[in-house]
C-alpha cells in the first residue's frame, strides 16, 4: 500500500449552539494518497466542508474538533503548535474557497496578494517574489499585465483562477477545494477544469474536491466519498460509485441528476429534507428518507464495511 499523504482517523467535529451540541462530522476516517483526487459529495449540512476545514484547523468558536487525529505524513496536525501550524499551512496544504470575492481582498491588487503569500513563507527579495507571482499568473492563464488589477476589475472566472494561483504559490502537496466552480457559468467552469487537469499533470498535487455536483465529481475524481448528516457512508473509486452505488443515499443522489444524453424517464431524487443535526434519530440517520429501510436501521447505526477491495459503504443491507 503506497504511503498515504493524509490520514484522517475517527474525526469528530461538534458545533456548540444555544439549542444543543450538533455533531457535524461523526467519526470520519479516510486517506488521501499523493497525487490522487478525492471527491467528497454531499448536500448542505452533511459536514463535508467542516471536515475539510478541520484539516487546516480553520475552525473557530463555536466549532470544536472534539476527537480524532489527522495525520500528515505521520504527524498529527491537531497536535501541532502554533509555529508548526504556520509552517504547515499553505506550504503543505492550501485551500480554494467557493466564492473568489470572499477570499480575495478587494482593496489589494492581485499581484500584491500573491507576493504577500510568497513573502510570508519564503525569505526572498521583493523582486524575486514579483517574478514568481507573474509566473504563477501565467500558469493559470492570466497575463502579467493584470498584476496591478483589483479583484473587482476581473471577471468571475479570472478571479477564481487568481485564487487557484494563490493556492499554488508555495507548491503544496494537497489542495482543498470547496465548491470551487459552483458559482461559475458552465463554460467558465470547463475552462477552470481544463486548467486544473494541466496543473495536476505538471505539479502532481493531491486534491480534496468538495462539491454537491456528482457528475462533475464523476469526471475529475479518482475516488469519491459520500457524506450524509456527518457520516461518511460510502467511499471507493469513482467509476464504481457511479455505476454500482451501494448505499441507498448514493443511489438516490445519482438519480437526482438528469443527464443530457440518457433516456428521458422520470427521476425521483430523494424524498424528504436533509436531517436536522440537532435532532438525529436513533439508528441510521437516513432512515426517514430511505426506501429500503429495515427494522434494524431504526436501532443500530451502520458502520463502514468492505464491499470490495478499497471500497466501503455503511448500510445494514450489506
Amino acid at each position: 500500500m503506497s504511503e498515504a499523504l493524509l490520514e484522517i482517523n475517527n474525526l469528530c467535529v461538534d458545533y456548540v449552539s444555544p439549542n444543543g451540541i450538533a455533531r457535524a462530522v461523526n467519526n470520519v476516517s479516510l486517506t488521501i494518497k499523493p497525487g490522487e483526487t478525492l471527491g467528497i459529495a454531499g448536500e448542505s449540512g452533511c459536514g463535508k466542508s467542516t471536515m475539510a476545514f478541520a484539516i487546516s484547523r480553520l475552525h473557530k468558536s463555536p466549532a470544536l474538533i472534539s476527537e480524532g487525529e489527522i495525520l500528515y505524513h505521520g504527524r498529527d496536525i491537531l497536535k501541532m503548535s502554533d509555529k508548526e501550524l504556520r509552517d504547515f499551512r499553505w506550504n503543505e496544504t492550501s485551500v480554494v474557497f467557493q466564492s473568489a470575492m470572499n477570499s480575495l481582498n478587494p482593496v489589494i491588487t492581485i499581484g500584491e496578494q500573491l507576493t504577500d503569500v510568497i513573502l510570508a513563507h519564503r525569505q526572498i527579495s521583493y523582486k524575486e517574489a514579483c517574478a514568481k507571482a507573474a509566473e504563477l499568473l501565467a500558469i493559470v492563464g492570466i497575463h502579467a499585465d493584470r498584476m496591478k488589477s483589483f479583484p473587482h476589475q476581473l471577471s468571475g472566472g479570472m478571479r477564481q483562477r487568481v485564487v487557484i494561483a494563490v493556492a499554488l504559490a508555495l507548491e503544496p502537496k494537497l489542495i482543498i477545494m470547496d465548491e470551487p466552480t459552483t458559482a461559475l457559468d458552465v463554460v467558465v467552469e470547463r475552462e477552470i477544469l481544463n486548467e486544473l487537469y494541466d496543473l495536476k499533470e505538471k505539479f502532481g498535487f493531491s486534491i480534496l474536491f468538495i462539491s454537491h455536483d456528482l457528475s462533475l465529481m464523476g469526471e475529475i475524481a479518482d475516488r469519491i466519498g459520500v457524506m450524509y448528516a456527518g457520516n461518511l457512508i460510502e467511499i471507493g473509486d469513482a467509476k464504481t460509485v457511479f455505476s454500482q452505488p451501494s448505499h441507498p443515499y448514493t443511489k438516490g443522489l445519482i438519480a437526482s441528476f438528469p443527464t443530457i444524453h440518457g433516456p428521458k424517464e422520470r427521476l425521483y431524487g430523494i424524498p424528504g429534507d436533509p436531517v436536522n443535526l440537532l435532532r438525529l434519530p436513533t439508528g441510521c440517520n437516513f432512515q426517514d428518507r430511505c426506501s429500503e429501510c429495515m427494522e434494524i436501521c431504526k436501532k443500530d447505526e451502520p458502520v463502514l464495511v468492505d464491499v470490495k477491495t478499497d471500497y466501503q459503504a455503511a448500510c445494514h443491507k450489506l
Partner: protein
Amino acid sequence: MDTTNNPEVLLSVKNLIKDFPIGQSSSKKSFMRAVNDVSFDLCKGEALAIVGESGSGKSTGARVLTRIYDKTDGEIIFKGQPLQEFIDDNGSLEYARQVQMIFQDPFGSLNPVHSIFHHIARPLLIHKRGDKKVIEKLVYELLELVGLFPAVETAEKYPHELSGGQRQRVAIARALAVDPEVILADEPISMLDVSVRLGILNLMADLKDKHGISFMYITHDIATARYFAEKTAVMYVGHMVEWGNSDKVTQTPQHPYTQLLLSAVPEAGKSGRRELGAKKGEIPLWKPSSEGCPFAARCPRALDKCSASFPAVTQLADDHFIRCHNI
C-alpha cells in the same frame, strides 16, 4: 414557433427589446441592451425552457413579462390581446392573476415576519376568492396540493422553520393560489439541495400535466431543461440563438453557442481536458448601437458578415429554429 396544428397560444412575444440605463448622472445616460429582438410563443399546457448563462437576459425577459420592468420595444400579446390593453382597462390585477412568477431564492421569497397562512391567503384575498371560511379551506388545499403535509400545521409555521425545498413549495402554492394560466419560474431549483430539486421539478411537471398550467422555466442547467420542458430556447447576451423541441436542441444542436454549452457540461466518466472549440473571450456588454452577432468574437465558424448583422431566423425543421449565418 408556429406549428400547423396549433395548440392554443397563450403568450406571444415579438421582437422584444429591453434597455437599461447605465452610468450615474441622470443627464448623460447611456444604455445597455439586456434583451434584443426576442420572439417566442408559449402554448397552453406546455413548458418552455430558456437556457443561458449569466448576462444572457433570461431573467430580465421574465421580469418584463410579469411587468416588473416595462418593455422598451416589441409586442407582448396575451390571449390575443396586447399587454397594453390589459393595463389600460384596469386589468393589471387580472393580468397579475393569470401570469405568476416564482423566484430563485427560497430564503428571500417569503417574508420572515408573516406565517405561511398569511403568504397564501393574501393573494386569495386580493383577488377576492371568497369569505374567510372559503379562503381558509383553499389555503389548506393548496398546501396539500404542493405536497406539504400536514397542511394545518405547516400553515401556522413561519418561514425560518421550513427547509429550502419546503419554502419553494410554499412559493409555488402562493403562485397557484390565484389560479394562473402561466407560471414563470426563474431558476427555481438552483439554490436548493440536490436531492430536493427533482421533487420540485416533478411537482411542476404534475401541475403542468394535470392542471394545464403553462410554464416558462428559466435555468442555466440544460439537463434539467431537457428533463422538464418540451421546448427549449438558448439565449446569449440577450439574443435568442436557437430554439425548438428540447430533444432536437439538446441532442443535435446546430448553433455554435449551443454546441459550446453542451460540450462544456461535466459528465461522469469522461475525464480529461476537453477542448471547447470556441475562442476564449469575455461576454460582451451589448448596447443599442452594437451590431452583428454577439457570439462573433468567440465563434469558431465566424464569417465577416457575422460582425455586421445579426442573422435572421432560419427554420431547420418543423420545430427547430436557429439564427446563424453559417449553418
